[in-house]
């Protein structure tokens, strides 16, 4: 048997668990975009009857080709794959899907190939796809999905997740959404709205009108709820919003500002800061029975809490040492330990969904950094340096971080912008995430389908 291995080295055990004796191509996700895997995404084939149906139904002329573009773009943005130009493809999509002529695909230096077929079945969209190992000349994966035609972009994302998982050994993060704050207008009178979009920047929807200031939206990891800070009626309070129904409500009954909300990993509690008389402490509220618990009780500022994925610990930001630093405590507030000891100030700690790392913002000598450290504070790694950036949020597989970055304005206040950026845990593949308006405070959802 011909064996092909792209990687030589990896420090994730999970990575090896899917390697069976016949598994061939593998992608090393620990090295970012150094050696992106050449992959060919053949346009998905569709027959004439289906073509006419989809044209009528969703006004898309070549749906198979459009879905393949979604997949291609996802793979490219990940930094791990190099999708090859379709101009070089020799084999027709329908034939390739039945049985690829592997020599043709290896001739254009492709190592993996995705083929597929799109059909209209009972007014629904059926998509089949296959992933092929070109060098070994065999099929690695074959799946089919059926859904409503308007869901076609999601099918592209789900296929990318399956391909990513098969080739890297880790779950993907493509069938996900980003909630963020859309920003417009001059700095002194910024209009902010909650906005949500697919991970690749499509299907943007605005959830508030911009009448009141809104900040720091965060997804519930288990459902379609969002928690955020709103200045509705000039009372800054944490709100809970159901993005399916649009119904929202204030969280708890606090006689002062509540802010910095986040969900517990089981989605049942909201953890946040409550500020009163110049002191901010951390509280939780159980969403179902409304029971409020005080977690910290200290005259310093305690804010930006984030649970560990098992719910046993909380990391948070406090200036109890004199300046902003990162701390970890048990989820009942006991056993508080400072973990950041490097030079500079540390803020916005967020526990990785894998549990092994905490991402943070660091301010040192007038520069802002996004970095990660182990949960005991050791092994600090700074991933990116800039004039201003903060608030990292993890992709559900813990491989990518999204954050926002602001540019410096001149003395007249011109030249200011706020944009979303993403970066690999490796520090490679730093990219601006396109948004319709300026944007800040991104939060990454869990995988929508599993």
């Amino acid at each position, binding site marked *: 048997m011909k064996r092909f291995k792209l990687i030589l080295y990896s420090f994730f055990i999970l990575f090896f668990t899917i390697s069976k004796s016949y598994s061939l191509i593998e992608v090393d996700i620990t090295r970012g975009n150094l050696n992106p895997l050449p992959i060919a995404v053949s346009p998905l084939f569709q027959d004439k009857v289906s073509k006419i149906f989809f044209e009528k139904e969703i006004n898309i002329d070549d749906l198979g080709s459009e879905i393949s573009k979604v997949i291609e773009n996802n793979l490219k943005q990940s930094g791990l794959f190099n999708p090859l130009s379709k101009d070089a493809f020799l084999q027709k999509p329908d034939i390739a899907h039945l049985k690829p002529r592997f020599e043709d695909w290896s001739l254009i230096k492709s190592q993996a190939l995705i083929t597929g077929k799109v059909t209209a079945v009972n007014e629904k969209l059926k998509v089949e796809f296959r992933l092929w190992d070109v060098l070994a000349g065999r099929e690695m994966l074959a799946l089919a999905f059926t859904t409503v035609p308007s869901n076609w972009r999601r099918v592209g994302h789900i296929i990318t997740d399956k391909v990513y998982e098969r080739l890297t050994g880790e779950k993907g993060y493509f069938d996900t959404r980003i909630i963020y704050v859309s920003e417009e207008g001059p700095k002194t009178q910024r209009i902010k709205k909650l906005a949500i979009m697919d991970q690749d920047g499509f299907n943007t929807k605005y959830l508030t009108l911009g009448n009141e200031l809104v900040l*720091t939206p965060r997804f519930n990891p288990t459902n379609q709820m969002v928690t955020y800070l709103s200045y509705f009626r000039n009372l800054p309070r944490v709100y809970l919003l159901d993005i399916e129904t649009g119904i929202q409500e204030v969280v708890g009954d606090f006689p002062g500002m509540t802010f910095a909300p986040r969900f517990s990993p089981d989605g049942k509690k909201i953890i946040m800061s409550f500020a009163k008389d110049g002191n*901010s402490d951390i509280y939780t509220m159980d969403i179902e029975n409304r029971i409020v618990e005080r977690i910290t009780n200290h005259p310093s500022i305690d804010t930006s809490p984030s649970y560990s994925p098992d719910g046993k610990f909380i990391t948070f930001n406090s200036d109890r040492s004199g300046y902003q630093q990162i701390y970890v405590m048990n989820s009942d507030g006991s056993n508080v330990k400072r973990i950041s000891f490097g030079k500079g100030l540390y803020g916005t700690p967020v526990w990785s969904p894998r549990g092994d790392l905490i991402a943070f913002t660091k301010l040192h000598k007038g520069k802002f950094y996004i970095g990660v450290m182990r949960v005991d504070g050791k092994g600090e790694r700074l991933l990116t340096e800039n004039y201003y950036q903060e608030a990292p949020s993890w992709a559900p597989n813990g491989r990518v971080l999204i954050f926002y970055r602001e540019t410096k304005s*001149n003395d007249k206040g011109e030249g200011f912008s706020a944009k979303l950026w993403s970066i690999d845990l490796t520090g490679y593949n730093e990219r601006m995430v396109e948004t319709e308006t300026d944007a800040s405070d991104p939060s990454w959802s869990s995988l929508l389908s599993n």
Partner: protein
Amino acid sequence: MNLSNILKNTFLVILLSMVVSACATKKTGTKMDSQIQGDVYTGTDTVEYLAKGVPDRVFFATNETILTTMSRDTLRKQAAWLRENPSVNVVLEGHADERGTREYNLALGERRANAAKDYLMTYGVSADRISVISYGKERPVDSGSNPLSWSKNRRSVTVKAN
């Protein structure tokens, strides 16, 4: 007017604007030094007045909530004015500059406004006449990205609520 005249005039305008902008740069330089003391804004650029001789705001050093001598002076004037006008209630709006993380800045703004509130209470203003709101770094008064702009934005502003 012939072409050479037009050219000459244009040249003059360019020259003049260069001189003006050179002056402007110099002016800001000296202005800044005299307007910040120990990282705290001491100028009057953005300051409004609740009444004659009663400034509406106090300024803070980076990451600090301590009231300076000048701030305490301002707050004593505000307290005297509030005692004279017992029907007036106020909102203290606490702010931070843009060089800090959003969530921490919300807490910092709240702490700054409360530092001002505590001082007003020491000088005889009842707590129920004062409410507090923090805007963190969300409502800068100066949109520049330089130390002078930031110093104007680190503030607690006393606003009439009725």
